[in-house]
């Protein structure tokens, strides 16, 4: 880290220059830190990503501990547009998770009627009108690629919106924090209860809270297994003790993980365990929207009383610490962009409320790009935040994402619902018959991907003079075409015997399978006919 040029920094210093302020430098982690505001507004571009010393007065000695002890987060209740949006997203995502397995979808008498079902036992994946077989797993791979690109898209456009609103860890942490508030009261009451000695009242409250935790966790684990079997049947089997042991084990594991990750580890997961914040930091730039504190406007901080006495000396931040109190990960947004910030924007709600109370304009903490922050600090015109979404990178991500989606939809639309694979017998490759003709045997696998039984005709193409019969009919019924009924949604294995008159050469030919219904879906697979004559 190169040292900043003090002359340049001071010449670029903005309007309010806290002359009486302590500008002393503290070295921390090999980096000089001061109370000097650091942002794109006052320093080199890279300074926008630096953290500046939040403490007043600055720390006097070097920290000696390498281990940062966890301080429990007791986030305060807040109301505001972003909090309401968070409620909305939470409701929608939880409803999707818990509710989806219970949606019914009629597929006729031969297929399950659950709208979304991962049928591992029968190796089928149902999603509303779409049914995917194991050999079509590339659709699932495509979905995963789309999910990854979707995250890229969201990150480059609106920063860590996924982290702030939709991530399961965020949603469940939020849910458990509401439980805390419901049982123990708001921030101050919870801190007091934490500090209180263990007495009957505390034990009662804790027991009650952990019971609710457990119920939610169990419900979460229970909802997961519903995606893998018919939900109503599974619920009955589960309570009757008749479900597969995998179901009980899965529920137990997921209950445990939900209980610990949502109930206790919470923001620790985001800050220390999850790789996604680290990846995202590499994907964001000065044009990405993020929740940021406009330090050129807020610094130096001073209470309303102090500011009244000496209005020139202080910025808009009254140092009320409401932004810290409401933060679900317990960070101080005024330290600048940081990995602990999940951009849930609750601090914006908190700060806007305070600014309204003290009669200052809103948006001291706000969604903004660092580029706009710099412009705003220098008094230039800025764009509205939504315009930050439209830029080449986000549009490119969107186009890639969208074209993969369209390509998959197209492929799904035109895919054939019949299939044929041919395995020739290689031991022996051919059989000489008593009349001198030569027979080859093949195992045909006819695939019917419709939810109804289908008649299919198997036809020989090429191979002059050849006839065919199968293991279920005799040679006397041999012909160029045979008809089989393939059971619903299954693969039918057919032994096919193909016979050609004496004197034929080894040659290529093909089987064609056509469904005998209005679709007339057809598929051709090549095969080889071996004879003692060898190939021409």
């Amino acid at each position, binding site marked *: 880290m190169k040292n900043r040029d003090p002359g340049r920094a001071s010449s670029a210093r903005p309007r309010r220059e806290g002359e009486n302020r302590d500008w002393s430098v503290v070295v921390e982690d090999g980096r000089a830190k001061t109370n000097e505001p650091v942002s794109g507004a006052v320093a080199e571009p890279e300074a926008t990503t630096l953290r500046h010393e939040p403490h007043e007065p600055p720390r006097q000695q070097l920290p000696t501990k390498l281990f940062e002890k966890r301080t429990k987060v007791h986030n305060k209740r807040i109301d505001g547009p972003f909090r309401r949006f968070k409620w909305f997203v939470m409701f929608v995502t939880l409803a999707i998770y818990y509710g989806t397995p219970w949606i019914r979808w009629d597929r006729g008498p031969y297929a399950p009627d659950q709208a979304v079902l991962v049928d591992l036992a029968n190796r089928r994946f149902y999603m509303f009108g779409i049914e995917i077989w194991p050999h079509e797993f590339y659709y699932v791979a495509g979905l995963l690629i789309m999910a990854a690109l979707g995250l890229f898209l969201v990150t480059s456009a609106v920063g860590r919106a996924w982290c702030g609103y939709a991530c399961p860890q965020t949603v469940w942490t939020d849910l458990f924090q509401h439980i805390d508030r419901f049982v123990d009261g708001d921030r101050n009451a919870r801190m007091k209860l934490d500090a209180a000695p263990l007495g009957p009242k505390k034990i009662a409250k804790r027991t009650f809270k952990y019971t609710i935790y457990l119920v939610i966790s169990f419900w979460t684990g229970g909802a997961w297994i519903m995606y893998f079997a018919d939900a109503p049947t599974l619920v009955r089997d589960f309570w009757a003790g008749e479900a597969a042991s995998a179901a009980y084990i899965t529920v137990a594991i997921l209950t445990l993980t939900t209980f610990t990750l949502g109930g206790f580890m919470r923001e620790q997961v985001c800050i220390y365990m999850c790789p996604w914040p680290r990846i995202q930091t590499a994907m964001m730039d000065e044009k990405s929207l993020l929740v940021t504190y406009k330090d050129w406007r807020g610094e130096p901080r001073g209470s309303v009383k102090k500011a009244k006495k000496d209005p020139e000396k202080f910025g808009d931040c009254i140092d009320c610490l409401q932004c810290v109190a409401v933060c679900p990960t317990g960070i101080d947004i005024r330290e600048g962009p940081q990995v602990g910030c999940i951009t849930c924007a609750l601090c914006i709600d908190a700060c806007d409320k305070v600014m309204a109370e003290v009669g200052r304009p809103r948006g001291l903490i706000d969604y903004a790009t660092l580029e706009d922050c710099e412009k705003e600090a220098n008094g230039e015109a800025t764009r509205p935040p939504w315009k930050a979404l439209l830029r080449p990178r986000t549009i490119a991500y969107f186009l890639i994402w969208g074209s993969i989606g369209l390509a998959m939809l197209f492929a799904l639309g035109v895919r054939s619902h019949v299939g044929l694979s041919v395995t020739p017998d290689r031991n022996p490759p051919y*059989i000489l*018959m008593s009349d001198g003709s030569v*027979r080859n045997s093949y195992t045909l696998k006819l695939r019917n991907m419709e939810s109804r039984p289908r008649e299919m005709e198997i036809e020989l193409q090429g191979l002059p003079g050849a006839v065919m019969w199968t293991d279920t009919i005799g040679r006397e019924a041999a012909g160029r075409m045979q008809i089989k009924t393939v059971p619903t949604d299954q693969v039918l294995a057919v032994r096919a015997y193909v016979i050609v008159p004496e004197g034929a050469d080894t040659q290529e030919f093909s089987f064609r399978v056509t469904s005998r219904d209005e679709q007339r879906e057809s598929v051709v697979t090549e095969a080889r006919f071996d004879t003692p004559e060898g190939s021409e």
Partner: protein
Amino acid sequence: MVNKRIDEPTGTETVGHEWDGIEELDTPMPRWWLWTLYLTIVWGIVYVILYPAWPLVDKATEGVLGWSSRGELAKEMSAVDQARVTVREELSRIPIERLPENSGLFAQAVAGGRSAFQVHCSQCHGSGAAGSQTLGYPNLNDDDWLWGGDLKAIEYTLVNGIRSPGVDDTRASVMPPFEGAFEAAQLNALVDHTLSLSGKGSRNALGAQTYEDNCSVCHGLAGEGNRELGAPRLNDAIWLYGSSREQIRQQILNPKMGRMPHWSGRLDPVTIKMLSAYVWSLGGGEEFVEVADDPTVEVDEEP
């Protein structure tokens, strides 16, 4: 030389040795590491008590649970056998000529027969049941049957064998050796005539006469063979011991005759039934013509 002291900056004791001014701190093990060690010791003791552990001269200590990998295998095997019981029972009850009517059971029988074939039959007939012309083992995939190709005939062959010594009901016949019986020209004419039956050689009067006198009793006038006697068809394209003039001459003068062991007593009737179904299913199986004439078969008889 031991010179233990407390290291100032860390407050930890040193081990007391010094190498060129380098000292080592005697830092205690982390608590979690120690507990893990104790836990593994406890686990080891419990394991030794419960499971086979100490190797002795001829076996290991048995352990309280009495577990062994052989016992585990036996348990799994018997579980598999249990699962097969119903199929085997059904198979033992159904007359073999009725088997193809029950397609599910038939498929089970073919599958079981396939694996039994690999164990008991593939040594001669080959894993693909294609036989061997050089060694004279017949191909079971084709439509040429020496002794009959319907399910009952195949089962009979399997039960009693072919020319199997010591079995009363075995399929038996002998082709006499004609060594020294014919003159060279007569033998040549006979070979020609034999080949002409399947359109490969030229017809001639001497050969026809010789054939009629010596061969037609068993092989038939037109070479159509006789399954009662296991006399092969001579007017088809399949030659068990080869179709060259020399091979035919050898077969007339000093005939090779195949043998097959009987399997009754060695394989249980159900396995033989499954083997019959498998061989029948290979593509050359013949319909059992009498099945329609014989409706008195009691299918539902209790065992």
